[in-house]
């Protein structure tokens, strides 16, 4: 039987430099390199991925926020315009009503005033008539009886 040591030494101290049958094919190293460096790239990608998400998320948040603010402002503006239009219309109708009311009030007042004035005049005339009558009557009473009965 052979000695284990003999076989061990043959492989341990083998000079493989001139053993061309042991030359790996040319595609092996490029495959190894591709696997190693693509893995490295992948590792970087995994490291960078959270940052990419964070930045992307922040940008999206700001973009959405800005557009929401713009929408709100536009909405507020349009609402304000609508409100002002409505207000204007309301004002116009109120003014119209108010002018109608004022007009009727004014005519009522004029009527009232004229009636008051007329009443006053009538009262004064009556008072004047009465005083004249009383004066005539007193004069007639105080006058001596000149006429024979």
């Amino acid at each position, binding site marked *: *039987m*052979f000695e*284990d040591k*003999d*076989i*061990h030494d*043959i*492989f*341990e101290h*083998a000079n*493989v*430099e001139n*053993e061309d*049958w*042991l*030359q*790996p*094919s040319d595609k*092996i*190293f490029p*495959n*190894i*390199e591709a*696997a*190693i*460096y693509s*893995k490295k790239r992948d590792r970087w990608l995994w490291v960078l991925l959270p940052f990419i998400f964070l930045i992307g998320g922040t940008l999206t948040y700001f973009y959405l926020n800005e557009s929401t603010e713009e929408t709100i402002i536009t909405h507020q503006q349009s609402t304000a315009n609508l409100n002002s239009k409505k207000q204007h219309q309301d004002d116009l109708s109120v003014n119209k009503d108010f002018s109608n009311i004022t007009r009727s009030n004014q005519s009522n007042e004029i009527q009232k005033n004229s009636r008051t004035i007329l009443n006053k005049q009538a009262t004064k005339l009556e008072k004047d008539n009465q005083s004249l009558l009383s004066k005539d009557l007193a004069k007639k009473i105080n006058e001596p009886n000149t006429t024979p009965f």
Partner: protein
Amino acid sequence: MNIQRIAIPAGRVSKKEINGILADTNQALQTKQTDIEIIHAVLSGSKPAFRTLYERYAKNHLLTCLRYVKNKIDAEDVLQDAYILIYRDLKQYDATKSKYITWSNKVVVNTCLMHLRKNNILKFSEDINDVAFQMPVNENAISALSLKELTQLITQLPKGYRTVFNMFVIDGYSHREIAESLQISISTSKTQLLKARRMLQQNINNQHYTKPQNHV
């Protein structure tokens, strides 16, 4: 660190010349740098250094793969996987404990075992007929064999025998380590080794007697 001077042509440099310079650089790195220097360069991110490391030991590692896997295409696949693992684990390598070739060879052996396990190749049948028939032992039989012939004789062994034989005789594992690694009992490991030895002896003798002798 000694680096050989490489002549760079003046003026415009063609692609062919660039390839020539790169080849010279690789050769210079291969011949001058020690394993530790190359490993430091690889760890600091040098791609040419990793190529140098590969080119320096790829043949040794392919030989290991061929002892376990038999088929060259499969052996190259295993070598590829092993080098990816070597690159990944290179920072764990401790130069004070072992040589790079010893450490990297262990990674290659483990990758071979992983490949055998993954493909369900490892089967240890106890009832294979013992190789009882023994031929007369020729002392010069082994020394007369080339590395290629001896590797071929080992790869002719059944997979279970071959794995245990490679691990115990060539790669220096103990029966306990083999048993743990292959999930078999220590006695199975011993039996497989004994049968492997006998079968290999028979194969060596066959090879020796069938080989044409050179008469002076």
